[in-house]
């Protein structure tokens, strides 16, 4: 395995308003595709949000690709692209092209550079025809593709997707899943309830009640998870 940058959690706990969301999590990850499963409220979303500094640890340290998540949150949010479940919540600008271009704000790029990168990113994901369309006029699947374009244009080193297919139909789930699992070159952390997507990862972590209860080969982790919840 080529040496991908590391994600490491060292004795990490997170408390929210008197409730423990994550309890003493320690793990080192170097795989390309990392699946995260667990029931609602198990702590997997909190785990994902720590990877780009949206949530910080109450105790313990998180390191992502040589950055300390607590102290270097600003650099981290540039290196990490985050896909949420609800595309409506991540689209901030009126048209498709404007929203994708928004990700390049404040990077000191010229107007033409921005336009070129927007055009080529939209091209890659088959969204060129919609460049000037109002973002809200897209279908759910197209909106999630737009969200993906908006993230990948920033050339992140790590893509974190928190249940990116939760609101999509079967065809769009497959499409977004393929983009994330097959087409990406970057490291991917995929939080999902779709066990078929999780099975295609290189490693799967399972969370339960804020604890990391298991990690390893996807087939065996998923099998035990299904047996316990049968």
């Amino acid at each position, binding site marked *: 395995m080529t040496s991908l940058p590391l994600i490491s959690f060292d004795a990490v706990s997170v408390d929210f*308003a008197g409730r423990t969301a994550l309890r003493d999590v320690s793990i080192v990850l170097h795989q390309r595709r990392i699946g995260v499963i667990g029931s609602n*409220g198990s702590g997997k979303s909190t785990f994902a949000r720590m990877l780009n500094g*949206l949530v*910080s640890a109450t105790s313990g340290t998180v390191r992502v690709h040589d950055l300390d998540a607590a102290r270097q*949150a600003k650099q981290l*949010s540039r290196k990490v692209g985050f896909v949420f479940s609800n595309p409506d919540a991540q689209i901030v600008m009126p048209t498709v092209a404007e929203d994708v271009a928004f990700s390049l704000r404040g990077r000191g790029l010229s107007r033409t550079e921005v336009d070129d990168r927007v055009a080529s990113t939209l091209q890659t994901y088959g969204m060129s025809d919609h460049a000037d369309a109002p973002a809200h006029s897209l279908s759910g699947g197209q909106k999630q593709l737009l969200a993906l374009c908006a993230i990948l244009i920033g050339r992140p080193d790590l893509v974190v997707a928190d249940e990116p297919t939760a609101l999509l139909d079967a065809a769009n789930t497959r499409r977004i899943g393929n983009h994330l699992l097959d087409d990406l070159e970057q490291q991917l952390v995929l939080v999902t309830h779709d066990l078929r997507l999780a099975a295609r990862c290189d490693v799967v972590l399972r969370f339960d009640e804020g604890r990391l209860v298991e990690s390893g080969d996807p087939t065996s982790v998923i099998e035990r998870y299904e047996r316990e919840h049968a």
Partner: protein
Amino acid sequence: MNNPLRFDVRDITRIAVFAAIIAVLGLPGAIPVFGGAVPITAQTLGVMLAGVVLGPWRGAAAVVIFEVLVLVGLPLLSGGHGGAGVFVGPTAGYLIGWIFGAFVIGAIVRADRRRPTWWRVALGCFVGGIGVVYAFGVPVQSLVTGLPLGPTALSSAVYLPGDVLKIVVATLIALTLWRAYPRAFGGAQVSTVSSTAGPVSAGSAGAGSSRAASTDAARPDAARQ
């Protein structure tokens, strides 16, 4: 906060969302106003609620953003009006009054930085939503139309009953909202949630500025319910 116009990320999205709420309240058929029996618009209700929920600075900012969109031509005023025309017509003063009205409402409702009480919301909406709005609206209307101040004020009085009704409604909504979702009234200007994070000027870059607030926001359902 030293400069009240320095908003963090959560303030900015709340301003945008409230400006959008005011716009939606003016869309035809968007909202049932007393079964259509009373010919009033729900838009001023949106202005009152902006002040009540967001407080003075963010509330006034939401009204400003809404009005800039109207000014540049989006047909967002009740009845599908918009464009530079409405800012030179007889109602121009009322639109300007909305901005200051939302501010005064927010200042009165949030004066003690605690939970909103019914009398404070009603008083705020009365002083800000009627007093301030008419104080700007009537003189400008008189100036624009050439009708003396007295008759103008007299003719504006026909809108008073509707506005009083809106105060009642805004008060009911505010108190219900407090019970259903107290977090609505949170934010940089009431709680200390984001005071540890360096606030940034309206929308400027500077990631991590709202991390303290976002930690709280990461689980909106789990935090308080």
